[in-house]
């Protein structure tokens, strides 16, 4: 369990990285600062939330991503500008060099944000947008690599069925 001092240290070390991460997903500095505030407040409120399955920074990365996606969804439900939001994210992504793969990745991220559950969305974002390996994605979301692969394949299949 983290003490107040631990969380203060974490704040000093990672606040800037948290804001950047949130800014990349949200495309908005004010909202990114709000997300950072929420992330560190949630740590203060639940200092035992980190259970040590992944590294501290991996945990913080996952928490930031989760909070940012949640905020993005609330915003997008009102305005339905999914494609614009994903285009903003893509500004900071390094997509696959193959145009077909890049287009598929973009479509997967858009659909995940629109309709997938929280974990699947994190998996799709990690794999398609963040350049993480499936092992790294597994660490971020706290699942096994096999499960991550299955979820990713299932989401792909579902998307193909819908688009037929």
């Amino acid at each position, binding site marked *: 369990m983290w003490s107040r001092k631990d969380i203060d240290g974490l704040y000093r*070390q*990672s606040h800037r*990285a948290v804001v950047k991460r949130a800014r990349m997903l949200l495309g908005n500095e004010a909202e990114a600062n709000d997300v950072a505030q929420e992330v560190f407040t949630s740590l203060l409120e639940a200092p035992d939330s980190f259970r040590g399955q992944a590294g501290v*920074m991996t945990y913080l*990365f996952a928490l*930031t991503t989760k909070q940012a996606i949640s905020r993005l969804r609330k915003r997008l439900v009102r305005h339905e500008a999914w494609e614009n939001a994903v285009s903003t994210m893509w500004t*900071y992504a*390094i997509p696959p060099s193959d145009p077909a793969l890049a287009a598929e990745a973009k479509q997967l991220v858009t659909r995940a944000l629109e309709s997938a559950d929280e974990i699947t969305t994190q998996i799709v974002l990690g794999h398609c947008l963040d*350049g993480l390996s499936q092992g*790294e994605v597994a660490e971020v979301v706290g699942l096994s690599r096999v499960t991550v692969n299955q979820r990713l394949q299932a989401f792909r299949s579902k998307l193909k069925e819908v688009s037929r």
Partner: protein
Amino acid sequence: MKHISALTWFRFESNDLNLGEWAGFRWHLLRCETCRAQLTQRAVLGGDESAPSRVPISRLGIAFTAVLCLVGTAFFFARARLEPDPDLTMKGESAFSLVVITPQATGFGSRCAPGDVVQAEVRTSKEFIVVVGVSATGAQVLYPVTGSRSAEVKDGRARMPNSWVLDDAPGVERFVAVLSDEPLEVAHVVQSVLRGQPIAGTELLIRSCEKDARDAFR
């Protein structure tokens, strides 16, 4: 080529990469233009006005430098001990230690060579630090790696997370650590170092070595 992932960027910006990971990160950045562009883009995104500092790489070959980095890292773990050098300039309780990592030896002597990998550590009661490298080609910020403000010293000790690879400019290579109790503007520090005018209230620690291009990649 697999690019630097968002998680690795996050850890880099949180100063969380260990020495081995740093070597890999740095090696990838040297080879990958896309990720170097990302570095600049991210620096701007985070409100860092200045572009991140880059240590010049010898014209003798990036590949050789990378091999040196890896070998050097292995040597560092195996043999390096950070010890104050006799010609160390010290004031108060602070200390500025550097280790040059080469395939043959570790230690910071009066001579160094292009391609040498330098690792540094500062022990001080001051709270903020900027390290500037000064050579015949000019001055550049070595630490902090990104940002326009000084880095924070935690628990009285700042171990530079990155290694510096010396370029092939001949002459004396100086490493200047500027320490302060107040945050410093990096650009201001560089100017004061170049002019030889210390900023009031700061402490300067200087290490230097004579660089001989003939010793390149000894």
